[in-house]
């Protein structure tokens, strides 16, 4: 994991996207993975929100880390994260009301996404602002990647469409269960399965 690996730009990238991918290796932030992945558009916007929040909170924590007293470290991190989440919420509500409506309470719930807090605590607390920013972008992108894969299968099966464009023929019978949150468990399980299998092969080969 990133604690022992050298903290290079490339190392952080491959770590966050693959070797310690927040979703399928660390199994973090899956609550939102279940909730928003029935449509690609929602997933995409939600992921952008998470990328923005993780990136900026990492950056901010890293800048002021020297000033934060140890006792209130966590509290300040939560405050910073909440700040950026509310910014996302305000922007969506003002300029993308339809998406805001569709995402409902889940934008506010970005704050409970363990990935963001985890990166602030595990990375930004002990690294410079530049690397922290990069770490935030990449780990949230790792999250986005997995979510988009899940959303791809769910939207195509549940609605026969991708990003809202119908691509399946008319006779296609939608799988209603795929529109419901629990179905994300099936795909999440399969993705973890595939990911672990590939990784085990890599380790065996190394």
């Amino acid at each position: 994991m990133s604690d022992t690996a050298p903290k290079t730009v490339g190392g952080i990238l491959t770590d966050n996207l693959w070797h310690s991918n927040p979703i399928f290796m660390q199994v973090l932030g899956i609550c939102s993975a279940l909730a928003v992945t029935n449509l690609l558009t929602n997933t995409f916007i939600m992921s952008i929100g998470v990328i923005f929040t993780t990136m900026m909170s990492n950056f901010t924590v890293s800048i002021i880390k020297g000033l934060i007293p140890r006792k209130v470290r966590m509290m300040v991190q939560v405050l910073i994260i909440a700040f950026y989440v509310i910014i996302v919420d305000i922007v969506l509500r003002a300029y993308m009301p339809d998406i805001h409506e569709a995402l409902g309470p889940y934008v506010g719930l970005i704050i409970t996404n363990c990935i963001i807090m985890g990166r602030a605590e595990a990375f930004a607390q002990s690294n410079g602002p530049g690397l922290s920013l990069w770490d935030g972008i990449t780990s949230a992108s790792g999250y986005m990647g997995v979510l988009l894969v899940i959303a791809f299968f769910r939207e195509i099966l549940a609605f026969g469409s991708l990003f809202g464009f119908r691509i399946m023929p008319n006779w296609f019978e939608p799988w209603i269960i795929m529109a419901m949150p629990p179905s994300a468990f099936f795909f999440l399980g399969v993705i973890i399965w595939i990911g672990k299998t590939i990784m085990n092969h890599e380790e065996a080969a190394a």
Partner: protein
Amino acid sequence: MYDTIFQKQKVMRRVVYSLIPLFLMALYLYGWRVLAHTAVIFAAGILTEYIFERKRGKKVSEAVLVTCALFTLSLPPALPVWISVIGIVFAVAVVKEMYGGFGRNVFNPAIGGRLFIWIAFAAPFASAWMEAGGFGTGEAGVDLITAATPLEQMQNGTLPDIWNLIIGTRAGSMGESSILLITVAGLYLVFTKTAQWRLVVSTLLGALALSAGLFWAGVSDVAPHYAMLSGSIWFGAFYFATDPITAPNKKSAQWIYGVLIGTISILVRVFTDFNAGLSFGVFVANVFSSLLDELMPAPRKKKAAKPAKTSTKPKEAAA
């Protein structure tokens, strides 16, 4: 050839034999559709299990035949065949093999698969019921007629003929309708100690008690004897409640388990839009199965409840 693919399981065979009359009845009721579903479901089910078991270096269990047979019989006849393929692949791959294969599955595979496609394809399911009889051509010789099941009829206020319910000439899932044949086949299973009678009786009693209670309390319009004879309560009590893998082992746990299935089935049937009550009942009760075994005190006499059920269970061997 057969021996290289299958491991022999006497108990499972007896269940398959007992289902043969039900298949013949289904054939009379719904004609070629039964054959189509059976062929496709068995092929897909066995293939799926074969792929998984080959990885483990094991043979295909004969239990998969039971799963396929029960799954087939629990589907409505006019369901598109590709949906039943999705259902059986899900049943064997996800509900059974992903938990570790035969003997380790928490949920009954046939029930899991049935519920999955039932929820996923609610619309095709709703229009997949057929008028029964005459090898699937209906009385007027018309091929496909979407028919109301007895439960739907009763919701709309018409009472089905009770003899039709007992003999099985009514719309419903392919194998669930004939109370008479199910009872005969079920008794064969009970007397050969393939099925545990306690599970059958407790399931039926649970369902009877609650449906009678709701009827007398004025909550439900369906009289208890009609409630018992329609839907898949009867079929499920003999074939799904008694699944040795997913049912508990202790006597007292079995009583509670059966009552759970019966009552949940009726609750789902009366208070929700899904008419797959029995399936939900079995599915939910499956969750509590091992918990019940854990909570109930050990039987006083050593291994009193054992003979028929656990001898073929690799659960213990593997543990």
